[in-house]
């Protein structure tokens, strides 16, 4: 992702106190997020995804392609790309140039009730950035130690004897029994409790 030039803050409106407080809270959360409990993380994932293992729909494939293009082309018209840049700015803010720092300070002195500069241009975007960082944190931490999940594969390993006609039910009993255990293990692994 390429970094965008700093925004021209001279035309930015000042925030009211409530919005400013909410924005400051969101920025703090994005910059130094608190620990998210694995169980809470799993709840959020379960609420957001109908089936985490489902194949992507055509619409999702198209949308991911649009997002990729927007990220590569510096296009902020795409809400997802703008959010990604906001996230990067919140987590690793670029240093403030001296002239810009001076302008910000002058404006803050002129209006003492407004001390937080609108870095993202929209409080909602910052809040969304903070939310995304909260969600991402456990996964990013786990990247170096991603749990191994049991995967779909042939069931031939379960059968070391000749197939007898009339034993189809016994065979599927054995298949389901093993895969049930594997599903349970997968879920615990994803929850980080294995």
């Amino acid at each position, binding site marked *: 992702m390429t970094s965008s030039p700093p925004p021209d803050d001279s035309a930015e409106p000042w925030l009211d106190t409530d919005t400013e407080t909410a924005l400051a809270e969101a920025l703090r959360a994005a910059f130094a997020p608190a620990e998210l409990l694995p169980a809470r993380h799993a709840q959020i994932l379960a609420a957001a995804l109908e089936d985490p293992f489902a194949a992507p729909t055509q619409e999702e494939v198209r949308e991911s392609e649009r997002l990729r293009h927007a990220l590569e082309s510096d296009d902020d018209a795409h809400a997802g790309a703008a959010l990604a840049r906001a996230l990067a700015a919140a987590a690793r803010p670029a240093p403030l140039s001296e002239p810009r720092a001076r302008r910000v300070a002058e404006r803050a002195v002129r209006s003492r009730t407004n001390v937080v500069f609108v870095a993202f241009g929209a409080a909602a975007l910052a809040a969304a950035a903070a939310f995304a960082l909260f969600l991402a944190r456990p996964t990013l931490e786990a990247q170096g130690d991603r749990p191994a999940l049991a995967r779909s594969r042939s069931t031939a390993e379960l059968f070391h004897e000749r197939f007898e006609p009339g034993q189809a039910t016994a065979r599927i009993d054995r298949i389901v029994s093993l*895969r049930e255990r594997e599903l349970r293990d997968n879920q615990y692994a994803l929850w980080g409790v294995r």
Partner: protein
Amino acid sequence: MRRGACALLLALALGGCRKAASDPCADAEGGAPVGPALLAFLSRSRAAHHRADAFEERNDLKGTEVELDAVIHGPKPACPSAAEVREVLADTHARLGDLQSRHGDFAAALANVEQGLALVPEQGYFRGHLFEIRGLVEERQSKALAGRGDIAGAVSAEERALAAFQEAMRIQSEVIEKAAPGR
């Protein structure tokens, strides 16, 4: 959009955990992780086979067929080409073929065997078992034809039965060799 903005956000934050272009069902190191949809299919199939057992014990051919057809024509998970899905479907076709041939419906039985074979092209237990069932179907057909005085038809069916049994033996020999090489 099915999952809405939240899913987009997650996809972004998790660094694109899903590759749109890849097929998780066809991963060489194994398919998609074992998930609820696969288990739901397996569980539903298991229940259907148990119901089919109950009908079969009552000699209710129609009831048994309905239960097994429910496996074949019922809902499939997002990865219908997952190995377990194909193997369970193939085994269900084999059971249907065996059942139908025992009741004299040889055409339907052979059609089920063919559909099962198309699902499991790999040289494995399930494919070998389907050839074994094909042999049984042809053997029963041969006896039925002989009983009706169609000797030429009976001989022809008997030859097809022998060929199918031979293929079943060949495949299962390979499977045994692979499982315990050098023995």
